[in-house]
């Protein structure tokens, strides 16, 4: 053991038996005696369960009695137990960041169950490393910040409207910013909605009416957000409406800008007249302007392909919907749907699928390697299931094209420093567990901006995003973690390496000074920047080079 004791450092080491989980496989007495020999160690205690009420109390009593100013617990995993031990230190008046943990259960007793001696030696190293680091720990503080309890929702489709209404109903002021001159989004362009069998105006008017009447909602139509500054709890957004600019403060932002149907230029002789998309069909139907008797619908036009790999989720149900509406209006209209897989997932969609078959809609599977062809008169295709070519006379061809990202998605992504995926849809923090959050705190997403969805799903996601945002807005104050990065402006060369690696968008480049700066509210202490910075200017509090070198030295010493 090379390093010598520091005068004023008094480390208390608590070694846990974890019942028999640790004590059953390691020589506890040896560990205790060993810990006593380590530099700076003033007190060592073995606990049956350090995490039990009794064990926690022993830490709290020992801190003042033994005059400890560092605490090490050698036990299980910090993932589950670190917060508990840190708060024990805090309650005993010790800065919680003067605490360090050694995992001698998962990393020693469990993996070396049949090697008592080796396991014990391994645990000694872990304890020595933790003590060495503890000696170098410094007090860290969580900073408290005030916040705005107002929210901003970008995009006034059904998702954004639901989000705004939910937030207002929870008591938060909301700014709802919509680019078009009216709320409702893509619903304004539709003819009829299934499975409710209602005209879209009904739903839109209902939501718009409730929003307009709500004292907490400010609606900005014909407006866009041109700039956002700040961070969670403290954004300042610039809303532009015609020539006027308006600055608002808000604590959270919800992105609900929707998506747009792809225009299939160059495919199947698309002309917007005889060959149209579903969105165009819905407009025509609204005007009562469709006379065709032989209608063909081709699925996956421009999707599930090399250039656009995804399945757009809603175009199969849209095709089935329109087929049903045609059949209901005039049963002898011949409708053929050419498809690869009918994506009628769930309860309601599958019900619609069955209904369409009952009504006589014909389904033909095609092979993507041999797609249908249209010569202006009829669709010909190799029928996969019958194993031969077939020809279907067609006087109206409807192309089921996918929803694609809005043109300004990437601008908004840059403005809010949140990611989009390769298809331009906004990328959530975790695909399974955080579907409505971005990795960056304070920004949330819902509806088609995230991925194509039905109205039911868009409403649900709007409400969900509101709930996630309320998690921030309901706080009285925000606290930073103590373990955050810091960049030394005197040595930072402004290479932007750290900006590129930070997964949480926590680093800003200060242009006039040519250096980077960490936003301590957004920083999650991952250490990415510190590891990347070529000039050693970025460092992570609680994991400084000296602290880590001290640990490595101990690891190498044995």
């Amino acid at each position, binding site marked *: 053991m090379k390093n010598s004791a520091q005068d004023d450092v008094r480390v208390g080491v608590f070694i846990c038996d*974890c*019942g*028999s*989980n640790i004590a*059953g496989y390691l020589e506890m007495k040896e560990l205790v005696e060993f810990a006593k020999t380590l530099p700076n160690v003033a007190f060592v205690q073995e606990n*049956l*369960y350090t995490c*039990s009420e009794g064990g926690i109390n022993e830490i709290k009593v020992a801190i003042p009695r033994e005059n400890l100013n560092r605490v090490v617990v050698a036990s299980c995993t910090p993932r*589950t137990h670190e*917060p508990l031990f840190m708060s024990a230190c805090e309650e005993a008046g010790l800065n919680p960041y003067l605490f360090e943990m050694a995992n001698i259960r998962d990393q020693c007793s469990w993996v070396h169950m049949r090697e008592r001696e080796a396991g014990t030696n391994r645990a000694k190293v872990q304890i020595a490393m933790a003590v060495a680091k503890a000696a170098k720990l410094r007090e860290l503080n969580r900073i408290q910040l005030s916040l705005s309890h107002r929210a901003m929702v970008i995009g006034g489709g059904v998702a954004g409207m*639901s989000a705004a209404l*939910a937030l207002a*109903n*929870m*008591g938060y002021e909301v700014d709802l910013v919509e680019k078009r001159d009216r709320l409702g989004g893509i619903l304004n362009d539709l003819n009829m909605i299934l*499975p*409710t069998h209602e005209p879209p105006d009904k*739903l839109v008017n*209902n*939501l718009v009416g409730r929003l307009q009447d709500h004292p907490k909602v400010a609606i900005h139509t014909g407006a866009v957000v041109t700039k956002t500054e700040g961070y969670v709890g403290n954004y300042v957004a610039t809303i532009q409406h015609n020539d006027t600019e308006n600055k608002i403060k808000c604590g959270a932002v919800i992105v609900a800008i929707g998506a747009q149907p792809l225009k299939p230029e160059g495919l199947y002789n698309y002309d917007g007249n005889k060959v149209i998309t579903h969105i165009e069909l819905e407009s025509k139907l609204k005007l009562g302007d469709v006379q065709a008797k032989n209608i063909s619908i081709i699925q996956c036009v421009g999707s*599930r392909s090399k250039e656009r*790999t*995804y*399945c757009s*989720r809603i175009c199969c149900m849209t095709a089935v919907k329109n087929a049903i509406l045609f059949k209901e209006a005039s049963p002898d209209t011949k409708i053929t749907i050419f498809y690869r*897989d*009918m*994506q*009628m*997932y*769930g*309860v*309601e*969609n*599958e*019900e619609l699928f*069955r209904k369409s078959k009952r009504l006589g809609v014909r389904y033909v*599977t095609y092979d993507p390697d041999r797609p249908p062809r249209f010569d202006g008169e009829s669709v010909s295709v190799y029928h*996969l*299931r019958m194993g031969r070519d077939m020809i279907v006379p067609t006087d109206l061809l409807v192309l089921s094209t996918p929803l694609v990202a809005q043109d300004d998605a990437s601008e908004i992504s840059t403005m809010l420093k949140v990611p989009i995926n390769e298809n331009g*849809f906004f990328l959530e923090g975790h*695909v*399974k*567990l955080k*579907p*409505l959050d971005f990795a960056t705190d304070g920004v949330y997403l819902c509806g088609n901006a995230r*991925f194509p969805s*039905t*109205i*039911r*799903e868009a*409403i*649900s*996601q*709007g*409400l*969900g995003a*509101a*709930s996630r945002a*309320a998690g921030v807005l309901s706080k009285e104050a925000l606290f930073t973690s103590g373990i955050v990065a810091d960049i030394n402006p005197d040595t930072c060369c402004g290479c932007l390496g750290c900006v590129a690696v930070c997964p949480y968008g926590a680093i800003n480049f200060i242009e006039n000074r040519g250096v980077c700066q960490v936003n301590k509210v957004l920083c999650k202490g991952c250490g990415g920047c510190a590891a990347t910075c070529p000039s050693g200017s970025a460092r992570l509090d609680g994991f400084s080079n000296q602290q880590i070198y001290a640990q490595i030295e101990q690891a190498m010493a044995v």
Partner: protein
Amino acid sequence: MLDVGRHPKINVLAYSEVVDFNGEIGNFNVKVRRKPRYIDASRCTACGACAEKCPTKVPNEFNFGFDDRKAIYKDYAQGIPSVFTIDPDHCKVILGGKCGVCQKVCQAKAVDYEQKESFVDLNVASVIVSTGYELFDATQIPEYGYGRMPNVISSLEMERLLSAGGPTRGHLSRPSVIYGEKRLKELPKLIKKAEKDQKEDQKQILEQEMKRIEEQVHKYHTAKKLAFIQCVGSRDFRFHKYCSNYCCMHSIKEAIIAREHEHETESYIFYMDLRTVGKGFEEYKVRGAEVSGLKYIRGRVAEILQDEEMNPVVYYEDTEKRQVVGMTFDMVILANACSPSKGIRNISELLGLELDENQFVRTSPNNPLDTNVPGIFSCGCAQGPLDIPESVAQASSAAARAAEVVMTEGLPIAV
């Protein structure tokens, strides 16, 4: 799960059920019965010393009986709350016999054989029903042989077999082999006994069985050729008309994982439509074929038989080749439908909830979280089949609705 367990504002009442319910939005009274664990949860540290020493073995239902647990147990290590439970149907002391080993070894003094059930009264402003689903019972489809043929398993059994923390530590052993190995452990004792009792016939039968199983176990340890059968109990007029939403994806996932464990694995997925509607799902499916060599076969499986070596033989109509074909596999995995939970009837009666024709909690497209009772919301598979991202998104939405209750007396979002 960990976050829920640790959150100061969340009171987890596990191993409990609602037994009485009344009141209205803003003011519901709920009585919860807490079943006795025979463990003082505030003392138990989940060290597991008790289970190590407990002499009573019970087939482990969490792993579908592929392995055993003890009479004092915890389903899996990361479970929340992190507490052990005594199974009153098997513990010797609770059944009136002698033992008490766990009480002796428990240094935390957590074992309490006298613990009684208790009741908790709650007063809440709103309620969220998220009681989930149950796996469709595939024995209802006799032609698939589930329950009769050991190597035809359910999707959840497959999940356990693939799990690193599961009964085989992620190794894809054939169930016939797992059962065989279990039997092999018993057989020598039985043979000895037959010998002692001088029952020569029986001894011979047992010895033959032993030889046969030994060969089986030796020959077919790992399942390498797998068939996944989609829409088992879903999209089927006899059972559930609906599509269960997530099973196409979990079969693809399981097939990809099986291949990652064992490079020689070959998987065939028999489907009607492969529903890959989620974000990244279609790409995942394509990658499954290109990288993991999965074969997707459009066709409904008519019947599964078993050859003399316990290999399932799948008969299906290949709709693209237009012929009925039989193919032999090491193991067949059924994509069981998402069935409504059986307990939902009871809960819906207590709470006054309407169920839909499929026995899921009734919600509507414009008010996706609201039930017929103001102040009671529903999310996840309780209201219909959903995958994890959709369930998680809905859970947040239900939380939003519950929070709104306080301000608006539960007005629906769109009327």
